[in-house]
């Protein structure tokens, strides 16, 4: 029941907003539908905590502790982003960058995107997972090109073609997976694509086919995670789309794509019986972390800067999943959570910062503290958090990942340290002049909603200082599932 609501509400919201999305109250409706989805997701979480994993709808939907926490996170960030987008889009309208018709498209697609991601997380069917991932891409393509500028069209085109080709590889991987599973599970009852069934027989699946399938699945879904060298679409799409879209792309879509990779990894590792899938994740992860960090130096656009920072962090998370074992998986899940909360809050402040300055170029953004202390402090604290400074949760997860890497694969520590160090220097030296200094820019026409920023940062801080035992137990259970 809760599950039906979680999936149905965004769909309903999308239809409603397609009809009424141009009205004045559309932004409130958007936030209301997101709140309803969040409520349904919370009920689902409570139910899973109380009664354990759920398998419903002819086994097509499956909820365990791994995906339920991502469902909660997705619904939560979806809701806070809709709160942020209310004044943000109003200011964009005021600046004449957008008209009511496009706002309708924006609101409707926003809800559809949420629905697609939640479907991808909740489905038990690997084929449906693919369909949902593709739907998530399609619903965001027109959002990236919402401003219809040359740059945004280019970014959206790149996003569509790269992710389209990527996801086609993932489809081939899924076909190979089905091919292997069909020989064990048979065609009858259509169980050969259901993750729970595959997981039960993963030891009997043909390892050669699954190994090949994993290569395709990793390349395919990895494109959407933004793993190097397939990351080209990510900074463009983040920089040129509207800021709420950058926030949900970075905070949520990357997580969902990584979730798909990890589900596949669990199956393949069980079949191949070797560490090969883990090693591949480690290689891609390290490469993305180091490359992402070095590209940070060359950025001039504030949203591109944080786009590259997302590549770096997804690299670190992928690396941690590749390490495997309870501690690294625990750290990776924690890092997924804190990265998604911190990065979305940074995009919120970065969006308002560039609205105030009238440009996304970092050279043009100065003296944020003077114009609006909340924006200035939000950006400063968010950057400190994402750089892994001690009291914040990012520090805890990065520390766990580093120590595990040192113990199990000492060769990888210098790379990780270089990535973290370079990222620190690059981001800090850019953010510092933007926050401090003098500026004569006028204040924004509508007061920004920065409450979500501080709620997110407070949560990240709490996770860094004190993790509730229930939550820790939850992460541990999820980490055990991944193996």
């Amino acid at each position: 029941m809760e599950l039906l609501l979680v999936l149905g509400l965004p769909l309903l919201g999308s239809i409603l907003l397609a009809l009424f999305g141009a009205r004045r109250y559309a932004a409130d409706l958007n936030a209301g539908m997101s709140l309803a989805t969040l409520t349904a997701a919370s009920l689902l979480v409570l139910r899973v905590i109380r009664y354990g994993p759920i398998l419903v709808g002819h086994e097509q939907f499956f909820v365990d502790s791994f995906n339920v926490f991502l469902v909660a996170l997705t619904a939560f960030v979806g809701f806070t982003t809709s709160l942020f987008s209310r004044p943000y889009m109003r200011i964009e309208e005021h600046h004449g960058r957008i008209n009511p018709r496009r706002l309708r498209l924006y609101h409707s697609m926003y809800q559809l995107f949420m629905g697609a991601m939640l479907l991808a997380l909740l489905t038990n069917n690997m084929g449906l997972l693919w369909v949902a991932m593709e739907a998530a891409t399609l619903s965001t393509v027109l959002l990236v090109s919402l401003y219809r500028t040359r740059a945004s069209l280019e970014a959206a085109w790149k996003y569509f073609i790269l992710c389209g080709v990527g996801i086609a590889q993932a489809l081939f991987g899924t076909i190979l997976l089905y091919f292997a599973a069909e020989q064990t599970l048979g065609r009858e009852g259509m169980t050969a694509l259901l993750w729970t069934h595959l997981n039960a027989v993963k030891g009997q699946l043909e390892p050669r086919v699954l190994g090949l399938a994993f290569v395709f699945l990793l390349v395919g879904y990895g494109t959407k995670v933004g793993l190097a060298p397939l990351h080209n679409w990510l900074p463009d799409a983040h920089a040129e789309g509207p800021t709420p879209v950058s926030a949900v792309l970075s905070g949520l879509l990357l997580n969902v794509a990584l979730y798909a990779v990890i589900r596949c990894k669990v199956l393949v590792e069980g079949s191949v019986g070797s560490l090969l899938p883990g090693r591949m994740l480690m290689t891609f992860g390290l490469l993305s972390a180091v490359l992402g960090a070095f590209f940070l130096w060359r950025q001039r656009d504030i949203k591109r800067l944080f786009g590259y920072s997302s590549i770096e962090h997804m690299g670190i998370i992928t690396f941690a999943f590749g390490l495997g074992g309870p501690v690294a998986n625990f750290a990776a899940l924690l890092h997924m959570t804190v990265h998604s909360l911190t990065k979305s809050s940074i995009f919120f402040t970065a969006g308002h910062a560039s609205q105030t300055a009238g440009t996304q170029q970092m050279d043009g953004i100065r003296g944020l503290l003077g114009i609006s202390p909340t924006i200035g402090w939000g950006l400063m604290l968010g950057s400190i958090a994402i750089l892994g400074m001690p009291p914040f949760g990012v520090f805890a997860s990065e520390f766990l990942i580093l120590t595990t890497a040192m113990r199990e694969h000492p060769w990888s520590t210098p790379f990780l340290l270089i990535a973290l160090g370079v990222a620190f220097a690059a981001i800090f030296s850019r953010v510092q002049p933007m926050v401090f200094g003098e500026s004569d820019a006028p204040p924004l026409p509508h007061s920004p909603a920065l409450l979500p920023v501080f709620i997110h940062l407070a949560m990240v801080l709490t996770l860094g200082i004190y993790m509730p035992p229930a939550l820790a137990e939850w992460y541990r259970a999820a980490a055990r599932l991944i193996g």
Partner: protein
Amino acid sequence: MTTPHLITQFLNLLAAGLLLISFAMLSRRRTQRLITLLAWQGVILFLSTCLVAHSSGLSELYYSAGLTLILKVIALPWILHRLIYQLGAQWDSEPLVNIPATMLVGLALVIFAFGLAQPISMLATTITRHTLGIALAVILLSFLMMITRRKAITQVIGFLAMENGLFFAATSATYGMPMVIELGIALDLLVGVFILGIFFFQIREQFESLDLHHLEALKED
């Protein structure tokens, strides 16, 4: 009744046709011709799916074949034709870089695909197993086409041809995916082409051309 052997022969013939069309696509300049070739690929997919359905006795494959006929032979080519007509691009052709070199790269890709598919084909029990290599080759050739072309529409045709290859892989290795999934894939594809249609107009409005070399401003400097 036809013998299974004959059906296998015929399927191999169709697979060869599919591969041949992929090569033809690599060398065609005119956008309209490419769309026609894409529709022919759809016809081959339709025929092969019908044959597999007949020989395996799986009735759901007939639905899948029907879906292919409607979507890939009629709907998509029609939408693309209308699009290029509305954009006034029906006589467009594009200069190609060195066709012989592209062909040679294509040949290498085919050999690579066969090598990769060989061990997997051995495991398949379906009558169509030998065609898995061809399916993979079609996917790679379409990818090559997307890389070598500069026009937005041609890239999309390459993308659709890649999807055809994937569909062929699904029928040849596994007798097709479950129906729900195929419907989902078809829906995604259709929506994707619609979005691209909107996109073409936006791109042309902004750049007054569908040539993608305008879309190269976002680069790391």
